[in-house]
């Protein structure tokens, strides 16, 4: 076996890599892959078509151009061939709920853009508009192979605003925001009650029934708003039609008529548009079932209330958390929707077994529910795969755990044609590690995003290196 190149991940003293990092530090990286790259000799976890020992993966033009056993894949001439012998190669991991780009230092308020607390109904908040592409947290996360993530507002509001789907590398926010407003959380966990106080509560809503009524009213208002606009559009169309007819008529009478009078008549028939309401407008794609609601509940009662609310308005939804809904998992399965489960580190309730939440992914999988994992974090996004690994200790099959942070997530977020597996034609988000992606000990050696080598450095690496010199 010839080794055409030293692996780029052979050590941080590699001069080639260093040059690469320096080049990046002084230029804005445009995310176009320059020449084809072939990783040769690694173990490929394709996710969709099994494991290929001694495989080759070719990345070209930012896409995966070929995947297969070393014996059958032709490496294009001019490709940079990297020896990946002994390495495990897998698709970039997808974190299905994060606050990346919305926070820097949790306790420092001015660095946080997590949620608007002025009202419980804030669907017109767009995380894409707060997303800070230069956040120091993003390189930390991608260093461990997380290449894509959902950015969601914090869950303090019933409707806190809309998610974004990001890629963790790019020249700027515009490039990194693959999909703006891809989904919207609807939170019903009890934590959205912030005016609690029983008889002392002064501000509506202070209870779950208050939150539900407020939510229902918001969707009713949105339906009404939709009707008003439809009505307006119809009248406008009618008016336009009438105007055309009038024009035809007028053509004959033009000589006899007083033009000014006619103008007045036209003005009267022109319908006025309803006042735009950003809140209600934001709800429309969800009411129309065009976009996904991420329906969050913890226990069985909240879960069923939330689901009936969603059904009342025929919302298209996936479930989120359901950490304490063990008694109703058959009901969950009957809904036939995916579940973003966990975090499985959530403490059990008083009357739950010590492993009630740990085993939830396995219990859902057994019932045929599609599951995905999320870190629900910003600083700890890098630990997403650990959670998937831990779930296997409580009965989740290994392949399903890996799928829950790759292809399942890609399917839930509507990007399975581009992400989530090592398949030809997909975006070349590829991770090279020294072992099992779900094991906490595994060290990620190189991450490729859209076929480009991501510089394997971050703020923490720089501090490490600075203080290692002493």
């Amino acid at each position, binding site marked *: 076996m010839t080794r055409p190149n030293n692996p780029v991940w052979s050590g941080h003293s590699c001069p080639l890599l260093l040059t690469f990092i320096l080049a990046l530090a002084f230029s804005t990286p445009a995310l176009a892959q320059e020449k084809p790259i072939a990783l040769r000799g690694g173990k490929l976890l394709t996710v969709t078509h099994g494991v290929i020992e001694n495989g080759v993966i070719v990345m070209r033009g930012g896409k995966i151009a070929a995947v297969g056993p070393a014996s059958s894949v032709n490496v294009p001439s001019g490709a940079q061939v990297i020896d990946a012998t002994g390495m495990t190669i897998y698709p970039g991991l997808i974190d299905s709920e994060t606050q990346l780009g919305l926070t*820097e*230092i*949790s*306790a*420092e308020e001015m660095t946080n853009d997590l949620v608007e607390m002025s009202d419980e109904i804030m669907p017109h908040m767009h995380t894409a508009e707060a997303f800070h592409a230069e956040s*120091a*947290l993003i390189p930390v996360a991608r260093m461990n192979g997380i290449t894509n993530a959902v950015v969601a507002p914090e869950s303090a509001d019933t409707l806190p605003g809309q998610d974004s789907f990001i890629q963790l590398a790019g020249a700027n926010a515009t490039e990194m925001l693959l999909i703006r407003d891809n989904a919207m959380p609807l939170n019903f966990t009890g934590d959205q009650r912030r005016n609690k106080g029983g008889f002392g509560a002064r501000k509506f809503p202070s209870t779950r029934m208050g939150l539900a009524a407020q939510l229902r009213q918001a969707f009713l208002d949105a339906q009404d708003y939709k009707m008003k606009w439809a009505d307006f559009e119809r009248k406008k169309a009618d008016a336009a039609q009438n105007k055309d007819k009038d024009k035809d008529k007028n053509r004959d009478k033009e000589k006899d008529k007083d033009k000014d009078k006619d103008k007045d008549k036209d003005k009267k028939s022109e319908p006025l548009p309803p006042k735009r309401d950003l809140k209600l407008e934001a709800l429309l794609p969800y009411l129309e079932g065009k976009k996904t609601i991420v329906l969050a509940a913890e226990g069985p009662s909240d879960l069923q209330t939330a689901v009936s609310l969603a059904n009342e308005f025929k919302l298209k939804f996936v479930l989120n958390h359901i950490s304490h809904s*063990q*008694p*109703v*998992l*058959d009901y969950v399965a009957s809904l036939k929707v995916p579940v973003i489960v966990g975090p499985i*580190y959530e*403490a*059990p309730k*008083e*009357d*739950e*077994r*010590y*492993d009630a939440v740990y085993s939830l992914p396995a*219990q859902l999988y057994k019932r045929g529910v599609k599951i995905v994992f999320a870190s629900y974090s*910003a*600083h*700890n996004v*890098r*630990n997403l*795969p*650990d959670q998937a*690994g*831990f779930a*296997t*200790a*409580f009965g989740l099959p290994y392949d399903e755990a890996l799928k829950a942070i790759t292809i399942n997530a890609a399917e839930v977020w509507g990007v399975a044609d581009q992400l989530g597996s090592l398949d030809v034609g997909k975006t070349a988000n590829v991770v090279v590690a020294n072992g099992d992606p*779900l*094991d*906490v*000990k*595994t*060290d990620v050696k190189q991450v490729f995003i859209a076929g480009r080598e991501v510089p394997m450095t971050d703020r*923490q*690496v720089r*501090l*490490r290196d600075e*203080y*290692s010199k002493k």
Partner: protein
Amino acid sequence: MLHCVWLTTTLALASAAALGQSDGTAHHDIVIKNAIVMTVTHGNIANGSIYIKDGKIAAVGETVNAPATATVIDAGGKYLTPGIVDSHSHIALDDDVNEATSPITPHMMMKDAFDYQDKAIYRALAGGVTTSLLLHGSANMIGGQAVVIKHKYGATRDEMLFPNAPRSIKFASGENPKRVYGSRDQLPSTRMGNFAVQRQALVEAQDYMREWDSYNDKVKRGDKDASPPKRDLKLEALADVLRGKIMVQIHIYRSDEMLTEIAMAKEFGYKIRAFHHALEAYKVADQLAENNIAIATFADWWGYKQEAWDAIPWNATMSMRKGVRVAIKSDSEDYTRRLNQEAAKAIRYGGATEEEALKMITLNPAWIVGVDDRVGSIDVGKDADLVIWNGYPLSSYGVPEKVLIDGDVYFDRSQPGLGTTHYKEGE
């Protein structure tokens, strides 16, 4: 509904009684055989055995001599480690973590708040934790005195207290005290305020100690007119710190503050046992090693506040290589349930050996707590606090199958709830 049928409470309790833990005295001799014994101090023993007598490790090796009457536990070729020691925990205190009414509260005894029925004790046990140091919070520059517990969930309160554990006191520094008191327009609201408050308290303790020393001298000399000074619980505790009778555990983040605390300890003649959190220890590891100060740190937490901004996941291994004793601790009801995974991160970040990583959650935290002569490794004479794992413990996958404390099984994965009634019967 869950379709699994769990063992009933009755059966679990019967098993507990059979193992003799319910009366706390009638220990049975036990042999654990067919295990990969990770001793922490003298390597791994493949296919090893342990003989447990009277709750202590009586023998360990490839074969052990044990009476035929001993109960045999076949580990089935699985890994066996010492019980995990969590050197920084606030569980089982029912939210009574901070007496945040004054920055100096050394007379608070965490034992007085210890809620021995807290299920968090059992959940940590299920993650392999057998000993924890329950500390006062970090609101105060000088907080209260810690309690050391063994996770014998289901036993009585007194059985759960680690017998004759040395005393520890919690100091704090940095953002927390200044935020708590600063937000009330009180001293301290700055780091200089923090240290001034701490120094003032220690100066008063010196005076108090002198008064008592002089009284005790008089008594010793037979002076019958000597009258004792008034006892002051606060100053009495601090005087014991100055006398070296209480170990000092300091909540601290920034490296500059670590140097100030070291200087302060020298100024007043006490020793610092460990810096807790210590996320910037890697910047001053030489000085920590020189002063024999350990650290109890997180594996990779960072960024949750300004003083955690320079945290790096290599902190543990970089400090270790400079000769600092390193423990990975939880400071969390959640993380205390999976400290083995947290320790495994030291392998990933900085290439710790298996034994070095394991030491970070066993022998090293035991040293911080001051009980390393009794727990933290598999050595003859030590308490039989042991964990049998279903898989390799330093991974995402290893979870405890059985946890023994003082030779009794307190957790058994096949019968969760052993000795307790905290899960629903027949669920």
